[in-house]
């Protein structure tokens, strides 16, 4: 073979490899471009004031819908996934080990704690006030909470276990009330505003001092045009940068909820619909009879309402609930998860976004048990040192203590056994502790 010939042959061989490389290139371009193209459209919607938008939310009366929700939570805590299940039944809950039933994996409490960290896909379906379903999609398994009439079922397909609470009528009714009117539980419960307009006025007035509420353009959420409502703390010292709520322009249903930390970076909580459908869900969605052989745990009647209300309600509401009170609720929930039953003397210092909760640890010196709830009290000095290493030492008028930080919530544990918790910066926390002393 002449050298020239073999050279062209070689080149021809090499050009064939262009095909796979081109395929990779096209695929990469598609993967890179498609989300960008999908994002680019900020829909043109008529301008609305914050007042009008809140009215719209309040007026919203979506009875029938179903959809898929994606929730990403990054509190800056170590992964709670496994740990949460491990310590909730014992430490956390009203339904826990007291009656020895804490073991069921279908118990809504332990399951829904997992939502506190990581990314999860949920499905929700609602058909009127009597029927709701919430499913947490796991790998090759699903955890569903189904409310149909006066029955509440929870079913864990991974372990084939079910949890059943009956006569939860009150709970159901209360939940529905909260859900219907319920973008703002607090106001509703205080028994006030009759019309959406009044409610909007109320909300704006109540929040005026501490919070700025504004409409920040539009967005596409789950293929629907939405307004973005931005809720921002006016007070300095809050760790909350801002809360964005995307509200469906047609129905007024909040579709997406994003909580950004003041420190910047990834959102702490990002929950929103990825698909949403306002037609009536199939009736069979809400039918549940436990499969043959499934282990059924009966919830106690008097406990069921609380459980179905608080627990199954919370995550479902998260994406759609417009929660001004979110930042205030958040530390509360964390406390419920972490602190266990031993909290007493709870005081709230300050107001609005910078409110700090003060509480006493049982037995005075309880630093290491502050996080785990099940504390046996006696901790080896090495562990103590380790715990101290996790936080920053601070000194002030209150004495000295340790600050434990997450991306949203900071906690100051003083050496004399007091705990200050709030969604505020370290400095603000120390100031609050000083003031309280």
């Amino acid at each position: 073979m002449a050298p020239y010939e073999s050279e062209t042959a070689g080149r021809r061989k090499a050009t064939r490899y262009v095909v796979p490389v081109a395929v990779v290139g096209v695929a990469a371009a598609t993967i890179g471009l498609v989300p960008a193209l999908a994002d680019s459209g900020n829909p043109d919607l008529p301008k609305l004031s914050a007042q009008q938008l809140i009215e719209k939310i309040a007026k919203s009366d979506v009875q029938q819908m179903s959809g898929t929700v994606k929730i990403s939570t990054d509190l800056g805590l170590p992964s709670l996934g496994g740990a949460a299940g491990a310590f909730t039944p014992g430490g956390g809950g009203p339904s826990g080990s007291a009656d020895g039933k804490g073991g069921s994996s279908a118990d809504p409490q332990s399951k829904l704690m997992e939502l506190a960290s990581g990314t999860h896909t949920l499905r929700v379906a609602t058909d009127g006030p009597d029927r709701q379903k919430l499913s947490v999609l796991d790998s090759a398994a699903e955890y569903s909470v189904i409310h149909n009439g006066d029955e509440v079922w929870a079913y864990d397909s991974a372990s084939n276990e079910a949890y059943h609470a009956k006569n939860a009528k009150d709970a159901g009714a209360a939940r529905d009330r909260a859900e219907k009117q319920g973008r703002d539980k607090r106001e509703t419960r205080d028994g006030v505003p009759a019309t959406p307009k009044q409610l909007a006025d109320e909300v704006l007035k109540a929040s005026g001092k501490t919070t700025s509420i504004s409409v920040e353009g539009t967005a596409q959420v789950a293929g629907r045009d939405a307004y973005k409502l931005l809720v921002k703390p006016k007070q300095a010292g809050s760790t909350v940068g801002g809360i964005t709520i995307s509200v469906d322009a047609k129905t007024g249903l909040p579709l997406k909820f994003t909580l950004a930390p003041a420190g910047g970076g990834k959102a702490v909580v990002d929950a929103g619909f990825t698909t949403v459908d306002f037609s009536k869900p199939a009736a069979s969605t809400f039918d549940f009879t436990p499969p043959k052989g499934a282990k059924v745990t009966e919830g106690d009647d008097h406990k069921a309402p609380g459980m179905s209300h608080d627990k199954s309600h919370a995550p479902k509401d998260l994406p759609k609930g417009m929660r001004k009170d979110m930042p205030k609720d958040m530390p509360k929930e964390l406390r419920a998860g972490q602190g266990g039953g031993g909290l007493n003397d709870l005081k709230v210092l300050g107001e609005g976004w910078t409110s700090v909760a003060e509480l006493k640890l049982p037995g005075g010196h309880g630093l290491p048990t502050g996080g785990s709830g099940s504390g046996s009290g006696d901790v080896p000095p090495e562990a103590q040192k380790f715990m101290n290493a996790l936080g920053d030492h601070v000194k002030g008028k209150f004495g000295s203590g340790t600050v434990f930080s997450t991306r949203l919530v900071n906690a100051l544990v003083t050496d004399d056994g007091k705990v200050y918790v709030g969604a505020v910066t370290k400095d603000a926390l120390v100031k609050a502790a000083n003031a309280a002393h």
Partner: protein
Amino acid sequence: MSQAEAAPVGAVTVDSVPVRKRIWTLGLFRSELVTTFRRWRTLALLAVLAGVPILVGIAVKIETSGDSPAAGGGGGGPAFIAQITNNGLFLVFTALAATLPFFLPMAVGVVAGDAIAGEASAGTLRYLLVAPAGRTRLLLTKYAATMTFCLVATLVVAATALATGALLFPLGDVVTISGTRIGFGEGLVRALLIALVVAASLVGIAALGLFVSTLTNSGIAAMATTVGLLITVQILDQIPQLHAIQPYLFSHRWLSFADLMREPVYWDDLVKNLGLQGLYAAVFGSAAWARFTAKDITA
């Protein structure tokens, strides 16, 4: 998909060629199938695959025949295992979930890796090319035969599992993992769909194996490399720090077939999985083509 693809591969090349050639192409495909499925190695692989659901079924039966038939193992073990005692159909899903991570792709890797390199090391490749088949068509035939094996292997697992499940456990209405109830007939349809999705999930590794097979003249080396790649990818998929690349690993969404058991079916991951398998097939299929058509055949 695999079934759908296996047939068209023959059909796509076919339209433009005369009838005589078409028969001849199918003949090549048929003889390829016969060679593949007549090998003792292939039969042994299929027997191992058939053994898995039988073993799982018997193990679950023994485990639960004692005093507490209801306890479902607390959620451990392969997906769906808790439901087997109540409905034998779930053995199909469990068996597929148990074999998909390793047994099935390993078998496919062996067959795909052997496809070209095996011929080369046996010294039969050049005789295949002496016939006026063309290298591209030979490669397509090999790939079609490999994908047929994917489908057959999956169906063997599913069918054995169904038979074992029907023998050892009751059958009846199926409770989906969303908690809703569907009839046994629809359950069977879902099982078949799941088997097809599982077979389609193997398309990616089949293409990868075929590409590796064109790189070497040693059948053993090609099989070992393919299975080695499979293990490597499975390990990479477990390392949390690598989450950025994991969505692009061919095994990442394999278990998404379980989404067919949700009500309503959750399509997102299924579609992504099938798309990814198609991408792997396109990339490594064309790479195999580039290599094979340009290669010096010495054996």
